[in-house]
């Protein structure tokens, strides 16, 4: 890859991080934080983006960032007071900056209208009491004006240069400046040592030498001054043009104690630097304790210690490591089993060493998983903008509170919760909360609160989206469900069951916009993507006080808690999360329907029975109901079924291996794993198996009542 393209990639990556920082900082400021750290971090984020954008000539971005930065600098120096109006402007500018970054990355122009309005507002802001803002164009312009074309004729510049002690104290070096001067043309140099005191009186840090230079060059004064740019104020300097271009008489009037050196243009660089450094070396005051050759070599041999606290690693490498550790876990399990089979006593040295190994393996597995774990912050940070947009569109006043952004979860999970979460937050702000007028009428503050929380609970991550809106309008929900034929008109449902109706496919349509969360894209879609991750979603609602959606997800998608069962002699894993209960069916509860379908009477409802061995084609005989074990499982869309298997062998954590990647996709099978005895066991795709029971039949209301 072209190095510049790589740096460009890094830049845009960094922009995302800086934008997130910016957002966080601004929100903290909105909450009243005005400590210098927060304000500085905000300023720095914009500043960094501007700096990087300059490299890649993203002029529009640079210009906007500059205006933004100027205002932030005003805030930082307390020149601009942070009023709510200013805060809003800054937040909007942050969004616009993000748009500019995106435009820059995609190489398109940002919407000029939006930016122009903001720039105008900033101009008003920046023109405050002291209009100290630098004109944007000054910074947007490239580094410095190109050096003016050299004057055509050679001129002679007389330069008096006397360094002050402070010049050396800042690490400047007279010899280097003179060498630089020598780059401009032919240089005649006189060293003036008149003020050098006797050795006894020398102040080691003092500056006693001065130089008189005559420069024969085709340059203007600015070029000469430029050489001394860094030491302006740290030396006495006078530059004058010798009146007439006379031949050089100067050499003759050499002071007795003076030295003369001639500098030649660049080609003779090595020889020219020699004589300069000599006199300098004799003056101790500004001679740094230069490392001896040996030391310097040693320093060079050391590896760079500038190792940062974090490293960036290709995700593929981490995935490969996780894979290998998965293998290791399986291997270790196999080894344990072999040792047991070989009849080696548990108390023996081998078995004990194996225990150690097992312990270590688990630890490695945890550590590797931790590499991929990331705080949910990255997802949370997208939400404030979303809420602002929804608020602006709907005219509602919404305040988003987040908690637990530091909660860590596997990267793959993070990537996949973003969409459902976005949807839930949008619903909460758009439909969960009432309009300001309604809220005031209900005795609530006009500004609604949406609270987003993340926490770890028993090996899972729990995400909660709570609003303090009106809650679910249960009579309305029930009426809609009846109208759509999702439940029987006379169905007796508990409040919780009614709330859960909104997750049913086909429930949410445009017709229910007004009252409940759900707009076209239904909550069933959210629920589906959550269950696809092995998660669950639930809702609780109090009329007048708001609703809370709770999402519970596994921390990783690489391992799975499963129930080991056997069906028709084959070992299968059923994901634990789908199993509601296990039961021993009684013959009288099993009823056969016409088309080969059997149902189990369960607490007043009927649940379809799935004979796992038969469904997967392991056997062509029906399993004897009374000889089997039944597992009540719940699939997508809350459809329930009873799975019949031969026996349950226990519960264990398994490492998920893709069947599709290693073999091919098999209907009814989600993935595979390797058991301790080295045999492959398949992981049942409960959704697929369960949905098979209702393939052509319309959904039966009884399914809902069976709970």
């Amino acid at each position, binding site marked *: 890859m072209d190095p510049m393209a790589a740096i460009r990639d890094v830049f845009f990556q960094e922009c995302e991080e800086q934008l997130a920082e910016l957002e966080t900082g601004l929100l903290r400021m909105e909450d009243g934080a005005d400590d210098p750290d927060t304000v500085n971090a905000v300023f720095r984020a914009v500043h960094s983006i501007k*700096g*990087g954008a300059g490299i890649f000539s993203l002029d529009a971005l640079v210009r906007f960032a500059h205006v933004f930065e100027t205002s932030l600098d005003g805030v930082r120096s307390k020149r601009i007071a942070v009023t709510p109006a200013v805060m809003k402007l800054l937040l909007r500018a942050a969004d616009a900056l993000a748009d500019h970054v995106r435009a820059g990355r995609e190489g398109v122009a940002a919407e000029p209208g939006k930016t122009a309005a903001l720039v105008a507002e900033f101009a008003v802001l920046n023109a405050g009491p002291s209009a100290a803002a630098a004109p944007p164009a000054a910074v947007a312009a490239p580094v410095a004006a190109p050096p003016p074309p050299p004057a055509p004729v050679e001129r002679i510049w007389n330069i008096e240069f006397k360094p002050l002690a402070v010049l050396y104290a800042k*690490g400047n070096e007279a010899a280097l400046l003179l060498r630089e001067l020598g780059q401009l043309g032919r240089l005649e140099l006189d060293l003036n040592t008149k003020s050098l005191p006797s050795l006894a009186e020398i102040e080691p840090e003092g500056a006693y030498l001065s130089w008189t230079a005559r420069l024969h060059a085709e340059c203007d004064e600015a070029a000469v001054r430029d050489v001394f740019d860094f030491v302006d104020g740290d030396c006495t300097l006078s530059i004058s043009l010798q009146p007439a271009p006379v031949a050089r008489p100067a050499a003759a009037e050499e002071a007795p104690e003076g030295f003369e050196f001639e500098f030649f243009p660049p080609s003779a660089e090595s020889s020219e630097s020699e004589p300069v450094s000599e006199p300098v070396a004799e003056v101790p005051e500004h001679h740094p304790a230069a490392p001896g050759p040996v030391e310097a070599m040693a*320093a060079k041999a*050391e590896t760079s210690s500038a190792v940062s606290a974090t490293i960036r690693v290709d995700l593929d490498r981490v995935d490969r490591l996780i894979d290998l550790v998965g293998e290791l876990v399986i291997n270790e399990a196999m080894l344990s089993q072999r040792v047991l089979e070989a009849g080696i006593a548990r108390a023996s040295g081998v078995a004990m060493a194996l225990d150690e190994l097992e312990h270590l393996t688990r630890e490695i597995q945890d550590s590797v998983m931790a590499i991929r774990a990331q705080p949910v912050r990255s997802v949370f940070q997208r939400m404030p903008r979303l809420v602002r947009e929804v608020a602006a569109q709907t005219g509602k006043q919404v305040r988003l509170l987040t908690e637990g952004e530091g909660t860590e979860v596997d990267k793959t999970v993070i990537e996949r919760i973003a969409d459902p979460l976005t949807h839930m937050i949008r619903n909460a702000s758009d439909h969960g909360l009432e309009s300001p007028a309604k809220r005031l009428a209900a005795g609530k503050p006009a500004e609604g609160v949406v609270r987003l929380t993340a926490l770890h609970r028993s090996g899972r991550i729990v995400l909660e989206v709570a609003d303090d809106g009106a809650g679910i309008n249960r009579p309305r929900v029930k009426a809609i469900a009846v109208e759509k034929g999702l439940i029987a008109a006379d169905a007796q449902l508990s409040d919780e069951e009614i709330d859960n109706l909104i997750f049913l496919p086909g429930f949410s349509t445009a017709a229910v916009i007004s009252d409940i969360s759900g707009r076209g894209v239904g909550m069933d879609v959210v629920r589906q993507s959550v269950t696809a991750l092995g998660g669950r979603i639930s809702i609780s609602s109090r009329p007048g006080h708001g609703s809370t959606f709770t999402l519970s997800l596994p921390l990783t998608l690489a391992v799975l808690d499963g129930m080991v069962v056997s069906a028709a002699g084959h070992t299968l894993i059923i994901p634990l999360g789908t199993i509601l209960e296990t039961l021993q069916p009684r013959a009288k509860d099993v009823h056969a329907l016409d088309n080969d379908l059997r149902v189990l009477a369960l607490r007043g409802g009927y649940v379809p029975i799935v004979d796992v061995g038969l469904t997967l084609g392991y056997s062509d005989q029906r399993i004897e109901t009374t000889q089997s074990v039944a597992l009540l499982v719940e699939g997508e869309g809350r459809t329930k079924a009873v799975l019949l298997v031969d026996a349950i062998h226990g519960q264990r954590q398994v490492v998920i291996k893709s069947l599709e990647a290693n073999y091919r996709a098999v209907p009814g099978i989600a993935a595979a794993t390797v058991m301790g005895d080295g045999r492959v066991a398949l992981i049942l795709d409960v959704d697929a198996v369960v949905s098979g029971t209702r393939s052509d039949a319309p959904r039966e209301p009884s399914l809902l009542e069976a709970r």
Partner: protein
Amino acid sequence: MSKTVLTVDDSRTMRDMLKHSLVAAGFRVIQAEDGVHGLEVLAEEKPDVIVTDINMPRMDGFGFIEAVRRDPANRAMPMLVLTTEVDAEKKGRAKAAGATGWIVKPFDPVKLVDAIRRVTA
């Protein structure tokens, strides 16, 4: 022997850019992410010149320069400030803190190397 440059900048883009430009010009480059980190690196390494950003978390460029200058071993260390600011106030502050010179961002690799050559033997 190639010279060693320590760059101190919190922006990864800028670090990469500096490294790319300086390595291409034959320098050995070591890097730090902010002032505090820069001082840690200096405890281990003796660069020939330091190039530092001003706006950084934990310890900004001004603080970093002052801290380096306070260390007798680095009193004469050439230090260049990277700044997007063209305004004289920032330069003045950097100089007061002990900066040797400055480079205006976005820098041009040639100018960067020139500036470094101007302060290192």
